[in-house]
């Protein structure tokens, strides 16, 4: 019987990048953590996330806030002396969490991304007001007021449209997407 792959292997399958090294080659130098503009908000630094994956401590990783603090700025990736694509690893972890519906409670990122994908599949375009419902009620009353007043100012300045736009050949567009069979791990 085939052995169940460990967490590190699962992450590796999800990191379908062309070049770049597997995380085994990480020397734990911490250049990634030192380059990360969001590190002070993470519960584990990027370096620690790699160490946790290698120690097969899956739950510590997937329930961490770190994954959802990554803004995809690629500072870690371009500076890693071992050429590990750390941003791609974060993407892989996001996909892992979203697919398995397992992530830190209260994280807005997974809902936001799911909603974004639904919207793009429906219209072919992104539409900010349509996304707002995923976060605008999640930062308390103050946050809600802020978001609403910003929406109003943007409307006034004609920087927001009332109706979402759609690609013209939307039927073909959806057919294209339907032909793609999602690759990666089984759910």
């Amino acid at each position: 019987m085939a052995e169940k792959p460990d967490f590190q292997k699962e992450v590796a399958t999800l990191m379908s990048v062309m070049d770049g090294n597997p995380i085994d080659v990480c020397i734990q130098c911490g250049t990634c953590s030192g380059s990360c503009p969001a590190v002070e908000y993470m519960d584990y630094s990027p370096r620690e996330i790699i160490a946790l994956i290698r120690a097969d401590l899956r739950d510590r990783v997937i329930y961490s806030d770190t994954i959802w603090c990554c803004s995809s700025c690629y500072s870690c990736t371009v500076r890693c002396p071992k050429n590990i694509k750390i941003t791609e690893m974060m993407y892989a972890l996001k996909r892992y969490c979203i697919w398995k519906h397992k992530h830190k409670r209260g994280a807005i990122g997974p809902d936001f991304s799911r909603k974004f994908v639904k919207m793009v599949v429906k219209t072919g375009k992104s539409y900010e007001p349509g996304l707002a419902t995923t976060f605008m009620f999640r930062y308390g009353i103050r946050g809600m007021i802020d978001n609403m007043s910003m929406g109003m100012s943007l409307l006034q300045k004609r920087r927001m449209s009332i109706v979402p736009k759609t690609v013209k050949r939307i039927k073909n567009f959806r057919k294209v997407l339907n032909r793609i069979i999602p690759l990666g791990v089984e759910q």
Partner: protein
Amino acid sequence: MKYSYFPGCSLETVAQSYDVSARITADKIGVELAELDDWNCCGATAYFHVDEILALTLCARNLAMAEKMELDIVAPCSACYKNMLETSIRLKNDADLREHINLALKEDGLQFGGQGRVFHLIDVFTGNAELQRIQKLVANPLKGLRVAPYYGCQILRPKMGRENIENPDFLENLISTSGAEAIDYPLKTQCCGGSLIATKNPVALKMVQNLLKCATDKGADLIVTTCPLCQINLECYQKQINRQYGTQFSLPVFYFTQLLGFAFGIPKEDLLIGSEMHSPVQLLTRFVKEA
């Protein structure tokens, strides 16, 4: 030079001023932007969180349409640019992936062959010939205006062929060509928080606060960006940042194309200067030459 122009979703709404000013200034310097017909979203970052192959397919559809026009593609948004360039490189190097995605693109009568190139809008403004033309077009030299060049992330990173990604200077070159002074500040390539502004608001606000503080400490009169999301994050949240951090930021942030257009003497209304929450109008009027 003629390019297929991919405005991207933000430029239809919140970053209209970027779209309008890009088209006007490009026309002035002899860069022809033919909008890509029926383009779709590039996937931003969020699509890659859910399914990578589908996200690459989104970009591949745009690339294939540009190829059909036999033109290279130009994107003004750094995220669109990065996604399409990355897709193009990956599909060129991975025959299996290309075959898989081409099978899907057939449903829309399209094929990715890998002939076209991908540029950021600023790339087609900073060639030697274009810079010379820009220099000749400057009617209102913005002498004495202290501009903070803000690169952000995805125009530079991940590294895909650009030379100096740690300390780039192409935006500075453009600013000084307009007659303004490009100030030097250490955070010019630090992230604005991107979509964290929605999903991790306090984190993004702190990141923006750091940037605004760094630029104002170095004496910036305004910030110039090359990406709609950077512009929104840096500009639209200053009120919240001021409340939270007890600061008094009211720093105009607009697009490099608006700065250039203004230096060319194009009326500010035509460049949608004034659609910002912190208007640069007052600051700029002192540079208008009396007729």
